[in-house]
């Protein structure tokens, strides 16, 4: 029985998939704190879809996928801010128009020009078949993200909470905005291989949303989000071995379970706590004449 549980660790490809998933899960979880609090959830979704044409073009040109994906993601972000600045169209509509345009263009490219990559692996990811070069890239991206956040999380916090105060103190607000956007794009690219374009957004939102229910302190929220991301990504990849199911699906289902648990049982913001609080205040109400 115990042997059976250790079975995944006997295969090199599984070992790689496990630790790479955990790493990317941690980085996405860390960023998810900023994404959820900055209200960038839709933007994260948009970026993850907007990288697809970049991947296709990179495959055609024989360039590394991540270069194409990163460029394409940034182009989409630039296109969004341009349209937003120049038209009175609402931001969510702008994001919707731009990212679906990019995604559609990517699908069209892939269907028109047969290439080695298949659409399925971009959209759903394939961490089990990750190449050593991709592992190196992924580790590099993760290291940079972790370093930047470790050094500048307080500035990014102020920027997220009160950009006007940041500006008043003479902090480089545009640079902070760009930094957060770059981190988000880079992480999206890195996580693409683990869970695919469709589910990246879950990795970038769910851990942060779960942590938000569990704490009222931003620093703790980042740590909880990151830990949740790592544990669920590791657990999901591990479970996918036995279930023989898609890794991305397993990871995100696990993250959703954690969110549901927090939603019900969270000590202060959970449904049960809210019910308890209502009942106590209700009681107090009846006692007061």
């Amino acid at each position: 029985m115990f042997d059976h549980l250790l079975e995944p660790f006997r295969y090199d490809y599984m070992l790689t998939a496990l630790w790479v998933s955990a790493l990317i899960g941690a980085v996405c979880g860390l960023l998810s704190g900023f994404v959820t609090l900055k209200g960038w959830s839709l933007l994260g979704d948009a970026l993850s879809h907007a990288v697809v044409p970049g991947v296709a073009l990179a495959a055609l040109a024989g360039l590394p996928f991540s270069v194409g994906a990163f460029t394409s993601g940034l182009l989409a972000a630039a296109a969004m801010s341009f349209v937003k600045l120049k038209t009175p169209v609402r931001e969510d509509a702008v994001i919707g128009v731009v990212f679906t345009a990019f995604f559609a263009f990517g699908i069209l490219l892939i269907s028109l020009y047969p290439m080695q990559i298949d659409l399925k692996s971009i959209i759903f990811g394939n961490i089990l078949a990750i190449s050593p070069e991709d592992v190196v890239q992924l580790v590099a991206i993760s290291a940079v993200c972790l370093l930047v956040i470790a050094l500048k999380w307080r500035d990014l916090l102020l920027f997220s909470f009160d950009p006007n105060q940041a500006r008043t103190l003479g902090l480089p607000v545009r640079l902070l905005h760009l930094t957060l956007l770059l981190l988000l794009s880079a992480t999206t690219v890195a996580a693409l291989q683990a869970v695919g374009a469709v589910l990246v957004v879950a990795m970038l939102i769910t851990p942060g949303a779960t942590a938000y229910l569990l704490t009222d302190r931003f620093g703790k929220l980042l740590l909880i989000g990151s830990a949740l991301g790592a544990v669920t990504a590791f657990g999901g990849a591990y479970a996918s071995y036995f279930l023989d199911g898609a890794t991305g699906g397993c990871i995100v289902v696990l993250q959703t379970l954690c969110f549901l648990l927090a939603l019900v049982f969270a000590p202060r913001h959970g449904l049960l706590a809210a019910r308890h609080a209502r009942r106590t205040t209700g009681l107090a109400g009846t006692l007061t004449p």
Partner: protein
Amino acid sequence: MSPPVSNELPLTLAAQQVSVTYPNGHTALSDATFTLTGGTICALVGVNGSGKSTLFKALMGFVTPTAGRVTIADAPVREAQRKGWVAYVPQSEEVDWTFPVSVEDVVMMGRYGYMNFLRTPRPVDREAVTAAIQRVGLSDLRKRQIGELSGGQKKRVFVARALAQQGRIILLDEPFTGVDVKTEEAIVTLLRELRAEGRLILVSTHNLGSVPEFCDQVVLINRTVLACGPTAEVFTAENLSRAFGGALRHFDLSHSTVEAHDGRQVTVLTDDERPLVLGQGGHLEYRDRAAHQKLVDEREAAKTTARDV
């Protein structure tokens, strides 16, 4: 306690022919000129859409004037910002009260300009934060998440942040909206103390009635600066009707029972909340004459000390 600011020269804030045209072609403000010097509480008064918030943003360096310039101590706003001189108390509607930060966290954000690259709080930062929180009377609530505070407490958190920052110019955006009378009085008392320390307080407000009670100067806005100077000189029926047009309710009581009863002629101007009362010939009436006299005396005393220093 926060170190006294009064031993430094009071700062001068100047707008010189400031015009702001937004990228969509709308000119919100043109040719706005005024000068203020520290040791004052000045109200920035105008209706919505008068360019009041644009001017406010230009003073804080959030928008760059398309013409003219804003200077603080004869230097660009950016330099004053880098020195932490400009502190800002936002409108309650602008703040995300669900954000997972405590009272202490928010007040600490006033100290960022003094901290190192990593923004690690030093003992001096913690002391400044503790002192600021104490001064606004929130010591018991310092660990609370900001959304769990009452309207008045919320406002005081951001005033404490401005204190911790040791801002020498403090800008408050509609500080009395959604605040009970008791908190309003507490904030006004605090602002008077800050004025006595030589700071320049600029309050953006549409609440006319409270202006004469605590502001010694007024800048009246309607697409440009209509008038600026001591409250009693600026707050005339003529100026106010130029600034507010038809936006004010105008109760002329000269034919009312007021005159019949005691021979006094009163005019009440109000947009909401507290009314502004003008006496015969258009001079300002104060709700509490004794308190007003005390204010005038304080102001004179402050001027004398400033001259002596």
